[in-house]
């Protein structure tokens, strides 16, 4: 049994029950709350962030969607994350190589991914230990070629997470800044 903090209350539960609780969080329909905006990090102006709280049945949760954009990057580069205490699912839109763990579901064929990829909770929940979330999301799958353009990627990700689609134009990627 592990002591797990949920909304300021500590509850004793087994690791498998903890995973089931997050599974349930993933299954429940969630909504984005408020009108978000990008903000610069004080120690890194080249990175912009946006945080949008998630609610279930109108009540805020420990979950949120966090977007990170790098407008100064040479190629388009951003991440969209589902945070539940820490990152439990993420899309990395970059052109760097990702190497999967050898402890990956059988349906993940390639250990190497070159290009945009998706770290799902389903592929990474096996790394939960002792009522703790995985420190890193080791496993990922390449993002389908059919999902292109920030808005499509963002909406696809929300669909995967059972988050109600926001109105058009709520979130746009900040424009890229060309270096002189």
């Amino acid at each position, binding site marked *: 049994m592990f002591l797990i903090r949920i909304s*300021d209350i500590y509850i004793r539960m087994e690791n498998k029950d903890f995973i089931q609780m997050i599974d349930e969080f993933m299954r429940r329909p969630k909504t984005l709350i408020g009108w978000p905006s990008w903000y610069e990090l004080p120690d890194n102006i080249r990175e912009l962030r*946006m945080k949008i*709280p998630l609610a279930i049945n*109108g009540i*805020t949760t420990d979950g949120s969607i966090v977007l990170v954009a790098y407008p100064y990057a040479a190629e388009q580069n951003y991440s969209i994350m589902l945070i539940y205490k820490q990152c439990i699912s993420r899309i990395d839109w970059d052109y760097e190589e990702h190497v999967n763990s050898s402890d990956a579901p059988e349906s993940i064929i390639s250990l190497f991914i070159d290009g945009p990829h998706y770290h799902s909770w389903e592929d990474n929940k096996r790394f939960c230990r002792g009522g703790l979330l995985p420190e890193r999301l080791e496993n990922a799958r390449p993002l389908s070629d059919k999902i292109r353009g920030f808005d499509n990627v963002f909406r696809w990700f929300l669909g995967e997470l059972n988050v109600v689609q926001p109105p058009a134009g709520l979130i746009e990627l900040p424009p890229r800044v060309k270096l002189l």
Partner: protein
Amino acid sequence: MITTEEIIQSLTRFTSVKQYQDVIRVSTHCLYPSNGKVSVFIVGGNNSFMVKDEGGALKAIYPLAELPKNIDKRIFNIIRNYGLQVKNGNIYSRLVTKEQLPATILLVANASKEVADQFVGKFNSKLKRNFRDELAKLLDGQFHNRLHRDFQSIGQSNKLHKFAYAIDLFDERKLLINTVVNDPNSINACVVSTLDVKQANHSHLNQMIIYDEGENWRSESISLLQIGAPVVAYSHCREAIQKIERNQGLVNPF
């Protein structure tokens, strides 16, 4: 299986008809954008009646920052196809017979609703549905015997904070409820009081912040409020409080 009679009965409960001297007020099934019910008023006698909304559409979107001068013309453009008239914001029908009355009630109610719907979009008005008044009524109706107003609790700083409401829960536990509107002063005051009381670790107290989701909130404001206590949309506060009672203090299992 529910019977048709039961459905008819339950729908009837939503409609009320009351007489005030020479006017009859009919509360219809239509809803304004603020979720207030559309009422229409019937005047006349014998077999000649007029149905009007008494400016209900404008009252429902009150307060607009500034209503345009040609308000009647704008309303008329919206209700033209209903065959209705407007004067000083009051939407009204021509004189109708007893047989025509039910359909006319429907037309005026729907026209009034449509005007309110369209004006909200056009003038981007903030729907001040007086959320605090509505919340007071809701809590009073639901938790009358267990409700305390202007409840005071001490924070870790030793400062005494005032909360809009407290509800007695099980085992002498209490739920403190803070209300907040979309204004920096209100947000800051709410965060300070909930956070200070939270830091005090009173084991018998739970907290909840209720906000009016009809306002245009910034995501970061909600995130900030969340530091102090779970934030609950007004329209979900009743079920959230019931959840707390069921889950013995846990507002949300996530």
